[in-house]
């Protein structure tokens, strides 16, 4: 079941088993391997919580970054018990191959994949190009919602340290590579959110001192698919001078766009020490007496 996608572009990446193509997924669906007991579980993770309900890839189930993966009270991710409930209810076992896709160039899909990684779920992959590519290729969508039998997912303690940075970690990290993946206007401090989005959420604008501005979108093609390994190397290792052994922290506004960059650095380029600072600008830009650069 865990056959790699085997696609010339994907085979170039450091961890080719983390990305699948729409053609691969369509074949697996055709073969009855998606959403069937013991098969691949396909999840849609979107910015818009209703988008899945308007039509989705056959066999896909919805997972929502807010209502499924965030703790409802504390600003944190769910704990091991809640995570086990969320995954078990979707028919996911610890060894299940999970493929995630979503809207907005897979930001929320990458974010969900990153949260799955906090719990060490081994086989979780993104669909290259996400929802938009599937739709652009005129592939089938359905409003039928699967009803899988719940299975047991073990209660696993979340292990944040390797891939998640807290504010204190970032303070201790100052001087080492930081990647600000927000838009240029947010980086300069002129905007507090992406252009055309509500300008909410921070008392101060600017960026974390020393952070380099590499907007997430530079890692994606127009159609939302990831750029080739050579293009990504030219961007991060060439232009930005990062090396795969560097300790890197990526951040954005709430950690979703930087999950996209975390995925690129970790799985497509093989960087070994990348952490996502999910507190991001909504924490840093509101904190008292943390250093800011404009």
């Amino acid at each position, binding site marked *: 079941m865990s056959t790699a996608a085997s696609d010339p572009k994907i085979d170039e990446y450091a961890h080719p088993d983390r990305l699948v193509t729409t053609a691969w997924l369509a074949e697996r669906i055709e073969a009855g391997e998606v959403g069937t007991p013991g098969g691949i579980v396909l999840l849609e993770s979107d910015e818009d919580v209703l*988008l899945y309900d308007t039509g989705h890839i056959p066999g896909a189930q919805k997972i929502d970054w807010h209502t499924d993966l965030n703790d409802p009270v504390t600003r944190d991710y769910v704990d091991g018990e809640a995570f086990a409930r969320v995954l078990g209810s979707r028919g996911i076992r610890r060894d299940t191959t999970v493929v995630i896709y979503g809207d907005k160039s897979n930001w929320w899909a990458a974010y969900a994949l990153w949260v799955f990684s906090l719990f060490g779920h081994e086989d979780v992959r993104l669909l290259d190009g996400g929802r938009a590519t599937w739709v652009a290729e005129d592939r089938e969508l359905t409003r039928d919602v699967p009803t899988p039998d719940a299975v047991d997912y073990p209660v696993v303690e979340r292990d944040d340290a390797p891939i998640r940075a807290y504010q204190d970690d970032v303070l201790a990290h100052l001087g080492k590579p930081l990647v600000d993946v927000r838009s240029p206007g947010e980086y300069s401090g002129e905007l507090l959110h992406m252009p055309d989005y509500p300008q909410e959420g921070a008392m101060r604008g600017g960026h974390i001192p020393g952070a380099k501005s590499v907007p997430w979108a530079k890692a994606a093609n127009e159609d939302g698919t990831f750029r080739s390994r050579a293009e990504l190397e030219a961007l991060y290792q060439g232009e930005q001078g990062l090396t795969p052994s560097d300790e890197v922290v990526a951040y954005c506004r709430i950690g979703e766009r930087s999950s996209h960059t975390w995925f690129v650095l970790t799985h497509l380029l093989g960087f070994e020490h990348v952490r996502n600072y999910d507190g991001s600008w909504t924490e840093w830009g509101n904190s008292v007496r943390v250093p800011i650069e404009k």
Partner: protein
Amino acid sequence: MTDERAPLPPALAEIAEDFSSVSQSDRLQLLLEFSDGLPPLPERLAGEPDKLERVDECQSPVYLVVELDDEVDGAAGDRTVHLHVQAPAEAPTTRGFAGILHEGLDGLSAAEVLAVPDDAPYRFGLAEAVSPLRLRGMVGMLGRIKRQVRLKAGLL
């Protein structure tokens, strides 16, 4: 604990009641119905973005315009309000918010629309279902609708 909040107009109150009487997942289905049911712009407004106001608080390109019937022997506050909203199919949550406001406000008098409390979007039990962050778009829409009514009815 008594509810000290200003009341919603009847149509909006009924929608709020419908939402609060169902489970979280059914709330999303209900919101999807409002999304599917949002009427398209009338022909004279379609393709005329200059005649509409962009709702910056929404995460998707959403435009709206308020039109008022002419005054008939009455006060400006009696003029009937017509609401037109355009929101993309890729943003069903926002479309759902627009659908709720359309069904709840279209056809009310200017004075009735202006009396709608600004926290109305928080009264549908949607904060838990869609997350509080996502409700900001609806707050923005309501604020802009009221501002346009105030301006166009001359009730400043």
